[in-house]
Protein backbone atom coordinates (compact mmCIF):
# COMPACT_ATOMS: atom_id res chain seq x y z
CA UNK A 1 0.00 0.00 0.00
CA UNK A 2 1.44 3.36 -1.00
CA UNK A 3 1.67 6.44 1.18
CA UNK A 4 -0.40 8.48 -1.28
CA UNK A 5 -3.54 6.57 -0.50
CA UNK A 6 -3.07 7.42 3.17
CA UNK A 7 -3.59 11.08 2.41
CA UNK A 8 -7.25 10.19 2.33
CA UNK A 9 -7.82 10.72 6.04
CA UNK A 10 -10.73 11.08 8.42
CA UNK A 11 -11.04 12.81 11.78
CA UNK A 12 -10.71 10.39 14.70
CA UNK A 13 -10.35 12.55 17.81
CA UNK A 14 -11.29 16.16 18.52
CA UNK A 15 -8.77 18.60 19.98
CA UNK A 16 -10.21 18.47 23.54
CA UNK A 17 -10.24 14.66 23.45
CA UNK A 18 -6.61 14.65 22.38
CA UNK A 19 -5.65 17.22 25.01
CA UNK A 20 -7.45 15.28 27.73
CA UNK A 21 -5.76 12.07 26.65
CA UNK A 22 -2.40 13.81 26.36
CA UNK A 23 -2.47 15.33 29.84
CA UNK A 24 -3.66 12.03 31.29
CA UNK A 25 -0.97 10.06 29.45
CA UNK A 26 1.98 12.35 30.19
CA UNK A 27 1.07 12.82 33.84
CA UNK A 28 0.44 9.08 34.29
CA UNK A 29 3.89 8.21 32.98
CA UNK A 30 5.55 10.85 35.17
CA UNK A 31 3.58 9.64 38.19
CA UNK A 32 4.44 6.01 37.46
CA UNK A 33 8.16 6.74 37.12
CA UNK A 34 8.35 8.94 40.21
CA UNK A 35 6.19 6.53 42.22
CA UNK A 36 8.25 3.49 41.21
CA UNK A 37 11.25 4.99 42.99
CA UNK A 38 9.52 4.15 46.27
CA UNK A 39 8.60 0.61 45.19
CA UNK A 40 11.83 -0.47 43.53
CA UNK A 41 14.50 0.04 46.17
CA UNK A 42 17.32 -0.16 43.63
CA UNK A 43 15.78 2.72 41.71
CA UNK A 44 15.32 4.69 44.93
CA UNK A 45 18.91 4.04 45.97
CA UNK A 46 20.13 5.13 42.55
CA UNK A 47 18.60 8.60 42.78
CA UNK A 48 19.30 8.93 46.51
CA UNK A 49 17.29 10.72 49.21
CA UNK A 50 17.61 14.10 47.47
CA UNK A 51 16.27 12.60 44.28
CA UNK A 52 13.45 10.88 46.15
CA UNK A 53 12.42 14.15 47.81
CA UNK A 54 12.38 15.82 44.39
CA UNK A 55 10.38 12.89 42.99
CA UNK A 56 7.96 13.22 45.86
CA UNK A 57 7.33 16.90 45.01
CA UNK A 58 6.95 16.10 41.32
CA UNK A 59 4.60 13.22 42.19
CA UNK A 60 2.37 15.44 44.31
CA UNK A 61 2.30 18.22 41.69
CA UNK A 62 1.38 15.86 38.87
CA UNK A 63 -1.08 14.09 41.13
CA UNK A 64 -3.04 17.32 41.26
CA UNK A 65 -2.81 17.78 37.48
CA UNK A 66 -3.72 14.12 36.90
CA UNK A 67 -6.76 14.40 39.14
CA UNK A 68 -8.33 17.54 37.77
CA UNK A 69 -7.08 18.61 34.33
CA UNK A 70 -8.30 15.67 32.19
CA UNK A 71 -11.68 15.65 33.92
CA UNK A 72 -12.08 19.41 33.42
CA UNK A 73 -11.19 19.11 29.74
CA UNK A 74 -13.42 16.10 29.13
CA UNK A 75 -16.41 17.44 31.04
CA UNK A 76 -16.37 21.15 30.25
CA UNK A 77 -14.76 21.29 26.80
CA UNK A 78 -15.73 18.01 25.24
CA UNK A 79 -18.81 16.75 27.02
CA UNK A 80 -20.52 15.47 23.86
CA UNK A 81 -17.55 13.33 22.88
CA UNK A 82 -17.00 12.22 26.45
CA UNK A 83 -20.60 11.14 26.84
CA UNK A 84 -20.35 9.21 23.62
CA UNK A 85 -17.09 7.59 24.71
CA UNK A 86 -18.60 6.56 28.05
CA UNK A 87 -21.62 5.12 26.23
CA UNK A 88 -19.45 3.21 23.76
CA UNK A 89 -17.12 1.65 26.31
CA UNK A 90 -19.95 0.49 28.54
CA UNK A 91 -21.98 -1.09 25.73
CA UNK A 92 -20.60 -4.33 24.46
CA UNK A 93 -21.44 -6.23 21.30
CA UNK A 94 -20.63 -9.76 20.19
CA UNK A 95 -18.02 -8.24 17.87
CA UNK A 96 -16.21 -6.72 20.83
CA UNK A 97 -16.09 -10.04 22.60
CA UNK A 98 -14.76 -11.74 19.46
CA UNK A 99 -12.12 -9.04 19.19
CA UNK A 100 -10.98 -9.58 22.78
CA UNK A 101 -10.75 -13.33 22.19
CA UNK A 102 -8.51 -12.74 19.19
CA UNK A 103 -6.51 -10.03 20.95
CA UNK A 104 -3.62 -12.14 22.32
CA UNK A 105 -2.84 -13.42 18.83
CA UNK A 106 -3.00 -10.01 17.17
CA UNK A 107 -0.86 -8.56 19.98
CA UNK A 108 1.99 -10.90 19.06
CA UNK A 109 1.49 -10.44 15.33
CA UNK A 110 -0.39 -13.62 14.39
CA UNK A 111 -2.99 -13.35 11.68
CA UNK A 112 -6.53 -13.55 12.98
CA UNK A 113 -9.81 -12.57 11.41
CA UNK A 114 -11.63 -10.12 13.66
CA UNK A 115 -15.20 -8.99 13.10
CA UNK A 116 -15.98 -5.37 12.19
CA UNK A 117 -15.39 -2.97 15.05
CA UNK A 118 -17.06 0.27 16.03
CA UNK A 119 -15.22 3.46 16.97
CA UNK A 120 -13.59 1.62 19.85
CA UNK A 121 -12.71 -2.04 19.63
CA UNK A 122 -13.11 -4.47 22.52
CA UNK A 123 -9.53 -3.97 23.65
CA UNK A 124 -9.88 -0.21 23.69
CA UNK A 125 -13.08 -0.57 25.66
CA UNK A 126 -11.33 -2.70 28.27
CA UNK A 127 -8.49 -0.20 28.43
CA UNK A 128 -10.93 2.69 28.86
CA UNK A 129 -12.84 0.90 31.62
CA UNK A 130 -9.63 -0.05 33.43
CA UNK A 131 -8.45 3.55 33.18
CA UNK A 132 -11.72 4.93 34.54
CA UNK A 133 -11.98 2.47 37.43
CA UNK A 134 -8.25 2.18 38.14
CA UNK A 135 -7.57 5.91 38.06
CA UNK A 136 -10.52 6.59 40.33
CA UNK A 137 -9.05 4.15 42.84
CA UNK A 138 -5.55 5.58 42.46
CA UNK A 139 -6.76 9.15 42.79
CA UNK A 140 -8.88 8.48 45.89
CA UNK A 141 -6.14 6.52 47.67
CA UNK A 142 -3.55 9.10 46.61
CA UNK A 143 -5.52 11.95 48.10
CA UNK A 144 -6.10 9.98 51.31
CA UNK A 145 -2.31 9.78 51.68
CA UNK A 146 -1.65 13.36 50.57
CA UNK A 147 -4.23 14.92 52.89
CA UNK A 148 -3.05 12.59 55.63
CA UNK A 149 -5.71 13.19 58.26
CA UNK A 150 -7.07 9.62 58.14
CA UNK A 151 -5.93 7.06 60.70
CA UNK A 152 -2.53 5.42 60.22
CA UNK A 153 -4.27 2.13 59.45
CA UNK A 154 -6.42 3.66 56.68
CA UNK A 155 -3.40 5.40 55.19
CA UNK A 156 -1.43 2.15 55.27
CA UNK A 157 -4.16 0.30 53.35
CA UNK A 158 -4.56 3.24 50.95
CA UNK A 159 -0.85 2.90 50.22
CA UNK A 160 -1.21 -0.81 49.45
CA UNK A 161 -4.15 -0.28 47.11
CA UNK A 162 -2.50 2.78 45.54
CA UNK A 163 0.74 1.04 44.63
CA UNK A 164 -0.97 -2.17 43.51
CA UNK A 165 -3.47 -0.36 41.29
CA UNK A 166 -0.79 1.96 39.92
CA UNK A 167 1.58 -0.82 38.91
CA UNK A 168 -1.33 -2.88 37.54
CA UNK A 169 -2.53 0.04 35.46
CA UNK A 170 1.09 0.77 34.52
CA UNK A 171 1.20 -2.71 32.99
CA UNK A 172 -1.94 -1.97 30.98
CA UNK A 173 -0.50 1.33 29.80
CA UNK A 174 2.72 -0.34 28.72
CA UNK A 175 0.78 -2.69 26.46
CA UNK A 176 -1.43 0.20 25.33
CA UNK A 177 1.60 2.30 24.37
CA UNK A 178 3.16 -0.64 22.54
CA UNK A 179 0.02 -1.09 20.44
CA UNK A 180 -0.21 2.62 19.71
CA UNK A 181 3.44 3.31 18.94
CA UNK A 182 5.16 0.11 17.84
CA UNK A 183 2.67 -2.55 16.78
CA UNK A 184 2.78 -2.75 12.94
CA UNK A 185 -0.95 -3.30 12.68
CA UNK A 186 -2.20 -0.61 14.99
CA UNK A 187 0.46 2.08 15.22
CA UNK A 188 -1.47 4.24 12.75
CA UNK A 189 -3.80 4.96 15.67
CA UNK A 190 -1.29 7.28 17.38
CA UNK A 191 -1.80 9.73 14.51
CA UNK A 192 -5.42 9.98 15.56
CA UNK A 193 -4.38 10.85 19.10
CA UNK A 194 -1.75 13.42 18.07
CA UNK A 195 -2.92 15.09 14.87
CA UNK A 196 -6.51 13.98 15.15
CA UNK A 197 -6.74 12.25 11.76
CA UNK A 198 -6.09 8.69 10.62
CA UNK A 199 -6.01 7.23 7.15
CA UNK A 200 -9.40 6.15 5.95
CA UNK A 201 -7.84 2.95 4.74
CA UNK A 202 -6.56 2.02 8.22
CA UNK A 203 -9.81 3.10 9.84
CA UNK A 204 -11.77 0.94 7.43
CA UNK A 205 -9.72 -2.11 8.32
CA UNK A 206 -9.83 -1.52 12.05
CA UNK A 207 -13.07 0.32 12.75
CA UNK A 208 -15.32 -0.45 9.81
CA UNK A 209 -18.57 0.10 11.66
CA UNK A 210 -17.38 3.50 12.79
CA UNK A 211 -16.32 4.52 9.25
CA UNK A 212 -19.71 3.42 7.94
CA UNK A 213 -21.36 5.50 10.62
CA UNK A 214 -19.22 8.59 9.93
CA UNK A 215 -19.78 8.37 6.21
CA UNK A 216 -23.50 7.85 6.51
CA UNK A 217 -23.50 11.08 8.52
CA UNK A 218 -25.37 9.97 11.64
CA UNK A 219 -22.51 10.54 14.12
CA UNK A 220 -24.68 12.73 16.30
CA UNK A 221 -27.04 9.96 17.13
CA UNK A 222 -26.57 8.45 20.54
CA UNK A 223 -27.49 5.10 19.12
CA UNK A 224 -23.91 4.19 18.56
CA UNK A 225 -22.22 1.68 16.36
CA UNK A 226 -22.06 -0.75 19.24
CA UNK A 227 -25.79 -1.11 19.39
CA UNK A 228 -25.98 -1.72 15.67
CA UNK A 229 -23.17 -4.20 15.64
CA UNK A 230 -25.10 -6.36 18.07
CA UNK A 231 -27.63 -6.90 15.32
CA UNK A 232 -24.99 -7.33 12.65
CA UNK A 233 -22.87 -9.59 14.79
Amino acid at each position, binding site marked *: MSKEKNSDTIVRFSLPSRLGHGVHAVSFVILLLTGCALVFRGFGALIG*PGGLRLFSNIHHLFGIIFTFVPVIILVFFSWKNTKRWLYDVTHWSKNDVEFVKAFPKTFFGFKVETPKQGRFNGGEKINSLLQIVGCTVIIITGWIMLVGNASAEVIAWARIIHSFAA*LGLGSVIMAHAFLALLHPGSKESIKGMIGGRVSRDWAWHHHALWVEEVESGDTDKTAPSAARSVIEG
Partner: protein
Amino acid sequence: MTKYAMCIDPNKCIGCNACRIACQMQWSLSPAVYFNRLEEHVEGEYPKLSRVIVPVQCQHCDQPPCEKVCPTKATYKREDGVVLIDSDKCIKCKYCMAACPYNARVLNEDGLPQKCSFCADYVAKGGIPACVSTCMCKVRIFGDIDDPGSEISEYLASHQTVRIQGTSMYYVPPVKMDSSVLPPACVTPIHVNVLKDVAQPVSKGILGLAAAAVVGGVVLNNAKGGDKNHE
Protein backbone atom coordinates in the same frame (compact mmCIF):
# COMPACT_ATOMS: atom_id res chain seq x y z
CA MET B 1 28.64 -7.67 72.24
CA THR B 2 26.52 -4.95 73.63
CA LYS B 3 22.74 -5.20 73.73
CA TYR B 4 20.97 -2.22 75.18
CA ALA B 5 17.66 -2.63 76.96
CA MET B 6 15.45 -0.76 79.37
CA CYS B 7 13.44 -2.01 82.31
CA ILE B 8 10.45 -0.02 83.52
CA ASP B 9 8.61 -0.50 86.79
CA PRO B 10 5.13 1.04 86.39
CA ASN B 11 4.41 0.42 90.08
CA LYS B 12 6.86 3.15 91.01
CA CYS B 13 5.65 5.73 88.51
CA ILE B 14 3.79 8.69 90.00
CA GLY B 15 3.02 10.35 86.66
CA CYS B 16 5.14 13.47 87.12
CA ASN B 17 6.17 13.49 83.43
CA ALA B 18 9.75 14.47 84.34
CA CYS B 19 10.99 11.75 81.95
CA ARG B 20 9.12 13.31 79.05
CA ILE B 21 10.33 16.81 79.88
CA ALA B 22 13.95 15.74 80.44
CA CYS B 23 13.88 14.02 77.07
CA GLN B 24 12.43 17.11 75.43
CA MET B 25 15.17 19.23 77.02
CA GLN B 26 17.86 16.78 75.99
CA TRP B 27 16.79 16.78 72.35
CA SER B 28 15.53 20.39 72.16
CA LEU B 29 12.02 19.28 71.25
CA SER B 30 9.08 21.63 71.08
CA PRO B 31 6.39 21.17 73.74
CA ALA B 32 4.11 19.28 71.34
CA VAL B 33 6.81 16.79 70.33
CA TYR B 34 7.77 14.05 72.77
CA PHE B 35 9.26 10.60 72.53
CA ASN B 36 7.87 9.00 75.68
CA ARG B 37 4.42 9.15 77.15
CA LEU B 38 2.58 7.98 80.22
CA GLU B 39 -0.48 5.77 79.77
CA GLU B 40 -2.78 5.95 82.74
CA HIS B 41 -4.99 2.97 83.58
CA VAL B 42 -7.72 3.20 86.21
CA GLU B 43 -9.79 0.27 87.41
CA GLY B 44 -12.55 -0.27 89.97
CA GLU B 45 -15.28 1.96 91.33
CA TYR B 46 -14.92 4.93 93.61
CA PRO B 47 -13.72 4.87 96.33
CA LYS B 48 -12.02 1.54 95.59
CA LEU B 49 -9.90 2.65 92.66
CA SER B 50 -6.53 1.43 91.52
CA ARG B 51 -4.31 3.27 89.14
CA VAL B 52 -1.25 2.21 87.16
CA ILE B 53 0.80 4.55 85.00
CA VAL B 54 2.68 2.79 82.23
CA PRO B 55 5.50 4.72 80.53
CA VAL B 56 5.61 3.87 76.81
CA GLN B 57 8.11 4.80 74.12
CA CYS B 58 9.92 3.24 71.17
CA GLN B 59 10.44 -0.39 72.19
CA HIS B 60 13.51 -0.81 69.94
CA CYS B 61 12.04 -3.95 68.38
CA ASP B 62 14.21 -6.89 67.36
CA GLN B 63 12.72 -6.81 63.85
CA PRO B 64 11.32 -3.30 63.63
CA PRO B 65 8.27 -2.99 61.34
CA CYS B 66 9.31 0.65 60.78
CA GLU B 67 12.63 -0.56 59.39
CA LYS B 68 10.87 -3.05 57.13
CA VAL B 69 8.70 -0.42 55.42
CA CYS B 70 11.34 2.32 55.15
CA PRO B 71 12.00 2.75 51.42
CA THR B 72 15.36 4.48 51.89
CA LYS B 73 16.78 2.55 54.85
CA ALA B 74 16.75 5.80 56.81
CA THR B 75 15.44 3.75 59.72
CA TYR B 76 17.95 1.13 60.78
CA LYS B 77 18.77 -1.09 63.73
CA ARG B 78 22.25 -1.04 65.15
CA GLU B 79 24.00 -4.18 66.36
CA ASP B 80 23.61 -2.95 69.93
CA GLY B 81 19.82 -3.07 69.47
CA VAL B 82 19.17 0.66 69.13
CA VAL B 83 16.76 1.65 66.33
CA LEU B 84 17.74 4.98 64.78
CA ILE B 85 16.74 7.33 61.96
CA ASP B 86 19.24 8.85 59.56
CA SER B 87 17.61 12.22 58.93
CA ASP B 88 19.73 12.73 55.80
CA LYS B 89 18.16 9.67 54.21
CA CYS B 90 14.61 10.27 55.43
CA ILE B 91 12.20 11.44 52.73
CA LYS B 92 9.36 12.00 55.22
CA CYS B 93 7.04 9.46 53.60
CA LYS B 94 5.77 8.51 57.09
CA TYR B 95 5.52 4.78 56.25
CA CYS B 96 7.24 4.12 59.59
CA MET B 97 4.57 5.98 61.52
CA ALA B 98 1.83 3.72 60.17
CA ALA B 99 3.96 0.62 60.73
CA CYS B 100 4.83 1.22 64.40
CA PRO B 101 2.80 -1.04 66.73
CA TYR B 102 3.46 1.34 69.65
CA ASN B 103 2.60 4.66 68.05
CA ALA B 104 6.07 5.72 69.11
CA ARG B 105 6.86 8.05 66.24
CA VAL B 106 6.08 11.73 66.28
CA LEU B 107 6.46 14.31 63.52
CA ASN B 108 8.67 17.24 64.33
CA GLU B 109 8.22 20.72 62.86
CA ASP B 110 10.13 19.71 59.73
CA GLY B 111 7.94 16.67 59.14
CA LEU B 112 10.60 14.22 60.26
CA PRO B 113 9.10 11.19 62.04
CA GLN B 114 11.28 11.13 65.14
CA LYS B 115 11.30 8.84 68.15
CA CYS B 116 13.26 7.70 71.19
CA SER B 117 16.84 6.77 70.30
CA PHE B 118 17.73 5.34 73.73
CA CYS B 119 19.88 8.50 73.87
CA ALA B 120 22.33 6.64 71.67
CA ASP B 121 24.83 9.50 71.48
CA TYR B 122 25.12 9.86 75.25
CA VAL B 123 25.09 6.14 75.82
CA ALA B 124 28.03 5.72 73.46
CA LYS B 125 30.00 8.15 75.64
CA GLY B 126 29.05 6.25 78.77
CA GLY B 127 26.09 8.42 79.73
CA ILE B 128 22.62 7.26 80.56
CA PRO B 129 19.36 8.34 78.91
CA ALA B 130 17.81 11.56 80.20
CA CYS B 131 14.52 9.87 81.13
CA VAL B 132 16.43 7.40 83.32
CA SER B 133 18.73 9.84 85.07
CA THR B 134 15.98 12.33 85.79
CA CYS B 135 13.44 9.92 87.34
CA MET B 136 13.23 10.53 91.08
CA CYS B 137 11.35 7.26 91.67
CA LYS B 138 13.88 5.18 89.77
CA VAL B 139 11.18 3.79 87.51
CA ARG B 140 13.62 3.14 84.68
CA ILE B 141 16.85 1.19 84.50
CA PHE B 142 18.90 1.24 81.33
CA GLY B 143 21.99 -0.68 80.31
CA ASP B 144 23.72 -3.54 78.53
CA ILE B 145 21.99 -6.87 79.12
CA ASP B 146 24.94 -8.73 77.56
CA ASP B 147 27.08 -7.49 80.43
CA PRO B 148 26.20 -9.64 83.48
CA GLY B 149 27.61 -7.02 85.82
CA SER B 150 25.46 -4.16 84.55
CA GLU B 151 22.79 -2.65 86.77
CA ILE B 152 20.01 -3.82 84.46
CA SER B 153 21.37 -7.39 84.24
CA GLU B 154 21.54 -7.63 88.00
CA TYR B 155 18.08 -6.16 88.35
CA LEU B 156 16.56 -8.55 85.79
CA ALA B 157 18.29 -11.49 87.55
CA SER B 158 16.92 -10.57 90.97
CA HIS B 159 13.41 -9.30 90.16
CA GLN B 160 10.34 -10.64 88.48
CA THR B 161 10.02 -8.88 85.12
CA VAL B 162 8.38 -9.55 81.78
CA ARG B 163 10.08 -8.97 78.51
CA ILE B 164 7.88 -7.35 75.86
CA GLN B 165 8.35 -10.07 73.27
CA GLY B 166 10.36 -9.06 70.22
CA THR B 167 11.59 -5.82 71.78
CA SER B 168 14.37 -4.40 73.94
CA MET B 169 11.98 -3.53 76.77
CA TYR B 170 11.31 -5.20 80.11
CA TYR B 171 8.52 -4.24 82.53
CA VAL B 172 7.88 -5.13 86.12
CA PRO B 173 4.32 -6.54 86.15
CA PRO B 174 1.84 -4.12 87.75
CA VAL B 175 0.88 -5.20 91.25
CA LYS B 176 -2.61 -3.75 91.18
CA MET B 177 -3.51 -4.77 87.66
CA ASP B 178 -3.25 -7.39 84.99
CA SER B 179 -0.15 -7.34 82.78
CA SER B 180 -2.38 -6.59 79.79
CA VAL B 181 -1.92 -2.90 80.55
CA LEU B 182 1.69 -3.27 79.46
CA PRO B 183 2.64 -2.72 75.80
CA PRO B 184 1.84 -5.78 73.64
CA ALA B 185 4.46 -8.02 72.03
CA CYS B 186 5.91 -6.67 68.80
CA VAL B 187 3.71 -7.95 66.01
CA THR B 188 4.28 -6.56 62.54
CA PRO B 189 0.95 -5.01 61.45
CA ILE B 190 -0.75 -7.07 58.74
CA HIS B 191 -0.74 -4.13 56.35
CA VAL B 192 3.07 -3.98 56.52
CA ASN B 193 3.33 -7.63 55.50
CA VAL B 194 0.66 -7.27 52.82
CA LEU B 195 2.52 -4.28 51.34
CA LYS B 196 6.03 -5.69 51.45
CA ASP B 197 5.39 -9.42 50.95
CA VAL B 198 2.27 -9.50 48.74
CA ALA B 199 1.23 -6.24 47.04
CA GLN B 200 4.65 -5.02 45.96
CA PRO B 201 6.10 -8.37 44.76
CA VAL B 202 2.88 -9.31 42.93
CA SER B 203 2.48 -5.94 41.23
CA LYS B 204 6.16 -5.96 40.28
CA GLY B 205 5.56 -9.40 38.76
CA ILE B 206 2.58 -8.13 36.77
CA LEU B 207 4.64 -5.19 35.52
CA GLY B 208 7.44 -7.59 34.58
CA LEU B 209 5.02 -9.85 32.68
CA ALA B 210 3.62 -6.85 30.80
CA ALA B 211 7.14 -5.73 29.92
CA ALA B 212 7.97 -9.26 28.75
CA ALA B 213 4.78 -9.36 26.65
CA VAL B 214 5.69 -6.05 25.02
CA VAL B 215 9.23 -7.22 24.27
CA GLY B 216 7.76 -10.46 22.89
CA GLY B 217 5.29 -8.46 20.86
CA VAL B 218 8.02 -6.28 19.36
CA VAL B 219 10.19 -9.29 18.49
CA LEU B 220 7.39 -11.44 17.05
CA ASN B 221 5.81 -8.63 15.07
CA ASN B 222 9.16 -7.71 13.56
CA ALA B 223 9.93 -11.34 12.82
CA LYS B 224 6.69 -11.56 10.88
CA GLY B 225 7.82 -8.50 9.04
CA GLY B 226 6.61 -5.12 8.12
CA ASP B 227 3.54 -3.07 7.94
CA LYS B 228 0.69 -5.50 7.62
CA ASN B 229 -2.20 -3.27 8.40
CA HIS B 230 -4.76 -5.42 6.81
CA GLU B 231 -4.51 -8.75 8.47
